[in-house]
């Protein structure tokens, strides 16, 4: 990163949501949410199911089209009330990597092909270039030997790490994680959390919807607690876990932490 870039990134946030609203018919799923994520920051979104965490995350790369509000990622701005141009959409999505609960690897391609195809089609990289990058990322997530396997031959944890490598291969500025470990056995989930923790340590900007409270507390820099389509409380994770200010947050944390 050059000095000029560093200076610019200090003043602009990596993700900026302004009054983002999502309606399904009469049902208000997101109530004009504003949120800022600084470059290098790891934001964890927690809260009960149906709170709108995933919907909010999916609005960031416009998998859900918000019904109102403005989304800015790394300098690219999209307004919900304007027609979204194909070019802006592509520009925004190229800056955002996403990891899904259900992995969503392409089942008819090997792990390697899953990672090379988007590089070639989206970034126009050569096959050799894309493969070199894919192999480097696969070994980084500990799966160098799985390059030629089809997803169905890989465990859930392996599939999710391949999916992370696939997203990283496009050099995103921001990574979104939508309950990345919820479909995994707790032990297998650890492999994935380890990779995510490393990414966070390397300074990747991340927004993570999760039910892994330990990850939310220990890895994230900023905690957002959501409920009923709104942000209930946000701030320093340790502080919120130790001393939640809102009754709804207390109720939620009690439910997830005092399970035994």
């Amino acid at each position: 990163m050059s000095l000029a870039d560093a200076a610019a990134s200090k003043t602009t946030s990596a993700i900026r949501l302004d009054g983002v609203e999502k309606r399904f018919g009469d049902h208000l799923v997101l109530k004009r949410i504003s949120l800022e994520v600084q470059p290098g920051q790891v934001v964890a979104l927690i809260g009960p199911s149906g709170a709108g965490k995933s919907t909010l995350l999916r609005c960031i790369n416009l998998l859900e089209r918000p019904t109102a509000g403005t989304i800015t990622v790394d300098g690219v701005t999209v307004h919900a009330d304007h027609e979204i141009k194909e070019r802006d959409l592509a520009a925004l999505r190229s800056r955002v990597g996403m990891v899904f609960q259900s992995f969503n690897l392409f089942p008819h391609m090997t792990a390697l092909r899953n990672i090379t195809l988007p590089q070639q089609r989206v970034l126009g990289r050569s096959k050799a270039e894309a493969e070199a990058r894919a192999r480097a990322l696969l070994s980084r997530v500990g799966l160098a030997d799985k390059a030629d396997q089809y997803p169905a031959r890989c465990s859930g944890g392996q599939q999710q790490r391949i999916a992370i490598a696939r997203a990283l291969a496009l050099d995103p500025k921001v990574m979104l994680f939508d309950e990345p470990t919820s479909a995994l056995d707790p032990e297998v989930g650890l492999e994935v959390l380890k990779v995510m923790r490393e990414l966070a340590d390397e300074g990747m900007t991340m927004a993570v919807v999760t039910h892994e409270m330990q990850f939310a507390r220990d890895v994230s820099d900023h905690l957002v607690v959501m409920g009923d389509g709104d942000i209930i409380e946000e701030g320093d994770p340790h502080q919120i876990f130790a001393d939640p200010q809102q009754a709804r947050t207390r109720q939620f944390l009690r439910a997830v932490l005092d399970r035994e």
Partner: protein
Amino acid sequence: MSGEVWSGVANGILTTVQLTVFGFALGAVLGVPVMLLRVSTWRPARWTGRAFIELVRGVPLIVWLFLIYNGPTQFDPSLGTVFTSWRSGVAALGLVSAVYMAEIYRGSLRAINAGQWEASQALGMSRFDTASRIIAPQVTRVAVPASTTYALSLIKDSSLVSAIGVFETTYYATTISSTLSSATPFVVAGVYYIALTIPAAWAARRLDSNLRRKVMR
């Protein structure tokens, strides 16, 4: 005597195979645009696709055969050189196959998880790349069992083409039967159809399990 019946009816086997292969190939290709119309988000296109499917499927194959073979020549007798019995037969089989294949493709498309579209879009792949490189190959694989089942039944349905005078298995069986005043040629024809369908069914199962081995979900 009996040997002549066997060899006489056998004259039509190659044509039966050709009718099935060309008719199915035509249907498999034309089925794609028909399916795309049918699943379009644009209402007029969707209705056109739907109307086309209902129309083609609602009329029996044998009626299509006569319509295609005899229809054009009624307006202009010189069209008879274009709509020969062979071409009319392939066209009718292809037409009917197209709508059945379109419905098979549509069902297979629905079987693809929405997450596949989302993952591809989230990666920034264009709609065209997503459709052609991510969705279509998966739809094709899902469609294999139903398509091969359809192709197998087409081997037998191609016998209807004998009605417009294409020299295929059933045509030979019919003419030899009336010459001899005997039903034996139809027994022979039945044996030949079974001899075609059983290996074809075996090959279809092999194809399916080979694909399945590679891409388990």
